[in-house]
């Protein structure tokens, strides 16, 4: 049903432009996001995480061990075909940036299989693409005013401040965990040492006494 008029042509033009814009949006690797998770990894365990990533997206994986044992973990990152992109054994902290070469499910695993009785707490931050924009509208293609670009640069600066704060918080938690470990070990050592001291000193006396109680009292004296 055709309706005459310029309004129709305007609507059609707008409609087709809207369609083109949507196609454009689909071509652009869409807004990603970041996942920041701190989880417990029991001893002899392996924990894997998966994410579907589009081709051409720049991703960053950053991890840090917060508590447990020697504060190290094995990490492994694989692409959808199983090819290993990153593999490190017994690392305390690392950061790895890559660009997704193909669409599909990327997998990264943390392994504590080398440890027999210490369970670990691991923090990781997986950033996929850019953060989603504040406005889910189509204004992304238009230019920003000076005020808006100032806001954007302040936002980015604050994001890096928050990032540094997170790292500081993790370092503090790790330091505190180490100090508590040390405290426990020193406490056990002190109690153990005190007990050993008592046992040895009392034992010495009785051992010495036993040397002299077998012989008779008529022992020869030196220089009589």
């Amino acid at each position: 049903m055709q309706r005459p008029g310029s309004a129709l042509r305007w609507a059609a033009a707008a409609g087709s432009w809207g369609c083109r814009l949507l196609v454009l949006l689909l071509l652009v690797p869409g807004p990603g996001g970041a996942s920041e998770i701190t989880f417990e990894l029991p001893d002899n365990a392996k924990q894997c995480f998966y994410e579907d990533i589009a081709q051409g997206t720049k991703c960053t994986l950053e991890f840090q061990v917060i508590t447990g044992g020697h504060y190290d973990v094995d990490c492994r990152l694989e692409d959808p075909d199983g090819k290993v992109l990153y593999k490190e054994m017994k690392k305390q902290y690392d950061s790895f940036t890559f660009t997704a070469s193909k669409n599909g499910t990327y997998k990264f695993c943390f392994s504590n299989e080398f440890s027999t009785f210490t369970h670990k707490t691991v923090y990781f931050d997986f950033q996929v693409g850019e953060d989603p924009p504040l406005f889910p509208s189509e204004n992304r293609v238009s230019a920003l005013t000076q005020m808006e670009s100032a806001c954007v640069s302040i936002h980015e600066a604050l994001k890096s401040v928050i990032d540094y704060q997170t790292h500081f918080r993790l370092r503090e938690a790790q330091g505190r965990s180490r100090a508590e470990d040390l405290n426990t070990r020193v406490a056990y050592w002190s109690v153990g040492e005190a007990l050993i001291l008592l046992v040895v000193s009392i034992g010495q006396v009785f051992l010495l006494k036993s040397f002299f109680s077998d012989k008779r009292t008529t022992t020869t004296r030196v220089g009589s």
Partner: protein
Amino acid sequence: MAVELGVRVVRPRPGTELGVVMRTLLLLLWLATRGSALYFHIGETEKKCFIEEIPDETMVIGNYRTQLYDKQREEYQPATPGLGMFVEVKDPEDKVILARQYGSEGRFTFTSHTPGEHQICLHSNSTKFSLFAGGMLRVHLDIQVGEHANDYAEIAAKDKLSELQLRVRQLVEQVEQIQKEQNYQRWREERFRQTSESTNQRVLWWSILQTLILVAIGVWQMRHLKSFFEAKKLV
């Protein structure tokens, strides 16, 4: 895949509804690809715990979505409504602040009232054990803390903010979060300093005590042996 579909679309004729349908479909496709977050596999009786170290009065929102492995189709399908997840949140003093069961798709929210390490634990409550059949449940999880938990579209609509006002609002929220985090670090440092000082005191007293015990034992040894030898008429 979605990209190829978009390119092959025929330009809609003006005035036809097909254009509207196509646009909606494209939009839905685009949105659908954004829906999946990070995911992991969880066993039937397995409990997965996540830790969030947050300052007080911070809101945390968690979204999860579960999928069950379908053996016939050999892929993961959205889980049946009977399958739910039990979410338990504990505060730094191990007190439970949230313990609720949600469906196969859920969203949980809590606000911290004490600063420190909060623990979020998830485990499934499968009512029919045959559902898992030795497979695993796939859980898509997304946890947003503090400023990231804010829904700016909702805030803009509620307070009727312009674009610039919304951007400034976001900056204000970010700065508030930074402030809270700084206060939390200051509190942590104070507690750590107190702990260190008390440890130092205890180590000092323990060393003094141990030296005194050592000297006392030495004296006792000498006296005991002396009396022993005197009794044995060796001295």
